[in-house]
């Protein structure tokens, strides 16, 4: 009996220490959405249960190992205890009840997360290798950044072009796959102004690791301001390069072709490309002029650039004028 009391006290002490330890480390990232509150509430209870159950098993094991260990020279067997049916029933039924309570809590918090605001802002999301594109249908804006107003529910209607992707902003907690051939929904109410990143969470090919996009949560006024700016940019983009830039964003070319000085692994960079010498897989070089770029956009396999596999580029339906506009845009990248 004495042993049971000591172990009981040790279990409780260890459980509390484990919980306090885990809690003070700061296990989760910043909580930046209303949905995260409900998830973190449940998570906290799970950490409580984990701390307790861990102690409940490990402490008696460790105690036994130390206190009842085999003394030197002792070759006798231990006490003959075959089992205890009451105990077995207890540790079947009690966990069963705990499990059902947790499942109920899980369903409850899932219900909270799915709570629908009929006035939610609708934004369309397109996922493709290896780029996120966001469309604001009411404003005619297409962007590679996701701007959201704070404290306002938004619903993302998400579509995948090629393979399965998954939309995850760790600070929002929620994750939803984006599947070809269907529209999936992601409902979130950001509640903390800040800069975050959407990170693709479903392996989608070679560039999966870099499939990230900026998420900006801002005050309503700043959000409106951004929308107005984007509309102005879209309206002003009547030049060939402006049109070309829109096409590039819309088709997600930037997912593989870098438009900045940092190259991407999956395709040749566009930065400083025009007029440069390009080395081909067969060892020859070619100048990246209008003819070469046109040919490479229309038929990527015609000339294989050294170090890249042209068969990964999906086919695009573009008019001659659109191709010329894209090239006009590429010329501006240096």
């Amino acid at each position, binding site marked *: 009996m004495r042993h049971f009391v000591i172990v009981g006290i040790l279990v409780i002490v260890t459980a509390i220490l484990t919980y306090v330890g885990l809690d003070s480390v700061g296990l989760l*990232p910043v909580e930046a959405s209303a949905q995260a509150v409900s998830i973190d509430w449940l998570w906290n209870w799970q950490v409580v249960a984990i701390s307790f159950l861990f102690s409940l098993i490990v402490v008696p094991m460790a105690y036994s190992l130390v206190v009842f260990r085999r003394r030197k020279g002792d070759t006798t067997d231990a006490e003959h*205890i075959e089992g205890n049916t009451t105990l077995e029933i207890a540790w*079947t039924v009690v966990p069963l009840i705990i499990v059902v309570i947790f499942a109920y809590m899980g369903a409850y918090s899932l219900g909270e997360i799915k709570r629908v605001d009929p006035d939610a802002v609708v934004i369309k999301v397109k996922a493709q290798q290896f780029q996120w594109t966001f469309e604001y249908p009411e404003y005619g804006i297409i962007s590679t950044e996701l701007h959201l107003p704070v404290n306002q529910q938004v619903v993302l209607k998400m579509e995948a072009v090629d393979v399965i992707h998954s939309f995850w902003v760790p600070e929002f907690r929620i994750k939803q796959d984006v599947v070809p051939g269907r529209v999936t929904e992601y409902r979130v109410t950001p509640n903390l102004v800040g800069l975050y990143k959407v990170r693709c969470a479903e392996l989608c090919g070679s560039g999966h690791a870099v499939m990230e996009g900026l998420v900006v949560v801002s005050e309503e006024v700043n959000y409106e301001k951004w929308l107005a700016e984007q509309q102005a940019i879209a309206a002003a983009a009547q030049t060939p390069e402006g049109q070309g830039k829109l096409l590039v964003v819309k088709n997600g070319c930037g997912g593989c072709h870098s438009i900045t000085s940092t190259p991407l692994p999956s395709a040749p960079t566009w930065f400083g490309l025009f007029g440069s010498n390009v080395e081909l897989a067969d060892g020859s070089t070619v100048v990246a002029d209008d003819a070469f770029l046109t040919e490479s956009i229309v038929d990527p396999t015609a000339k294989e650039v050294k170090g890249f596999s042209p068969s990964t580029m999906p086919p695009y339906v573009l008019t001659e004028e659109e191709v010329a506009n894209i090239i006009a845009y590429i010329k501006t990248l240096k």
Partner: protein
Amino acid sequence: MKRFFSIPLVRGLVWFVVGLLAGAAIVTGIRAVMGLELFGTRGFTEPAWVFGGFVATLSFLAGHGVMSDWFKVWRGEEVSEHHEDPEGWLKYLGPSLDHKVIGIQYTITALLLLVVGGVFALIFRTELAFEGMQFLSMDQYNTLMSLHGMVMIVSILLGIAGLMNYLVPLLIGAQDMAFPRLNAFSYWIAVPAAILLLMSMPLGGVETGWTGYPPLSASLNKLGQQMFFLGVFVAGWSSILGGLNLIVTVVRMRAKGMVAFRMPIFAWASIATSLISLTATQLIGLSFQLVMFQRLFGMGFFDPAKGGNPVLFQHLFWFYSHPAVYVFILPGLGIISELLPVFARKPLFGYRWIAMSSLGIALVGFLVWAHHMFTSGMNEYLRVPFMYSTLLVAVPTGVKFFSWVGTIWRGKLQTSTPMLFVLGGIVVFLMGGLSGPPNATVSTDLHLHDTYWIVGHFHDTMFGGFVFPFFAALYFWFPKATGRRMNEKLGQLHFWLMTPSFFVLTLGMMRIGLLGMRRRIADYDPALGFEMSHIVLTIAAFLIALSVLIFLINLVQSIRNGEVATGNVWNSRSPEWQVPSPMPAHNYDQPFEVVGEPYDYGLAGSKYVEFIASAKSKH
């Protein structure tokens, strides 16, 4: 030279190459007649490689000789009941019918693949240590990461098959498995499977992870994907046939007096595992075969453009692949239950409850697969019932833990190497078990899914449920197989090096996973500040590898130079320890009868088995 080519394994490998070329040539010939393209970027075209791989598997088996008896029966010739195995190590390269030889073949192959998969992990782990890409391309990273997963899975399947093959007939007092020829076949088909799997590397690699989700796995720019699918498909046969054989053996061939509740607990665990591998493996074979056909014949099973459904694949895949994790862990948990009483010198606490909990886990395991798909876009209403069913698995698993603690409590514990690995296995598996329910609960899983948290959780379950008990079993039964003991000091070093490193590795994985580290990424955003953590994880991974290297050196050394141990080394009640080691070719010279409970340690004068002196066992 002639002697070299008379070794069955060598003959099989030669025939493998011949079959590969012949199969590819046939398809290329047909394509020539049809006016299709003859050669692809990797030599042959994709259909030619796939058919070549298929033919190679069959010609390996035929050339190796494992099917010779069946061919003889087919021709109406006599075959002898037993084969004489060649002397020495050569018998391990041939089609032996002895379950002990086959068990060792399985185990050695599992260890080889463990090394291969482990080296893959070390390579990409080193790449991850620092931000940015250092020496691998992202494609190569994906290939190594995917093959680490699948090679390890095959290794585990072969490892548990090794344990079950070697131990179950000994534990239940059978001369051999029920179908010795099928048993040899089940092992030898795994060899071409492993070769096909590894062939995916030179043939362009794999980029999907071990799960092989379409549409990514169906995109045609990676031929290696096809060899990956074919390899797993072939390996599945080994698992299905092995499961069948084991169930029949335990049901039909137990010693006199061994009623169900006097069976060794490992036999219960093996039955539970085999029930799953016999009935669920078909689904992974089927789902992979459908993707193969989508790639080869343009059938749009999972292609939305052709009316297919990518999420359907995930259902088919997880219907096997979730129960499969119970295939991996149940035998290991059986080992823990089997060894604890020996080293605690106490009966197994709640024997019947532990036996039933294995079956409980196996059965509930069939109803939980969609918890891998909470974020997949499947029907939202399915998520809640699958949350309930998944959390239920915690109940029989809990029964095991509590019963183990009951066994350890007041036990006179003695911590030689096998026991250390048993205790380590319990704690590691406990961490895997406790990090499970948050993933089973839908709302928290929305955050945890596809992060490094899951990677940490999974490695905890696999190490606690398989790797630790596997090592425990190898240290424990090594004297039975060889008549020598493994070095105790090196064994302790192995344990004390591996266990802390492993805690650092998986707890570190879970920590950064919670903070935003996704799984299966070749590089990570510097803004997250994970570099220091990854450096620590990489060092831990190398320490684990070092400890396994120490184990392997110990293993090889002890076969020749280990301390001679022919008696009942561990003072066990189990029948195989009542006869001298190493075990003779046809097991027990005299049959035994079960006269008591298997784990009645501490009950004076009790016995588990008694040998029947008068009757000579019939060979």
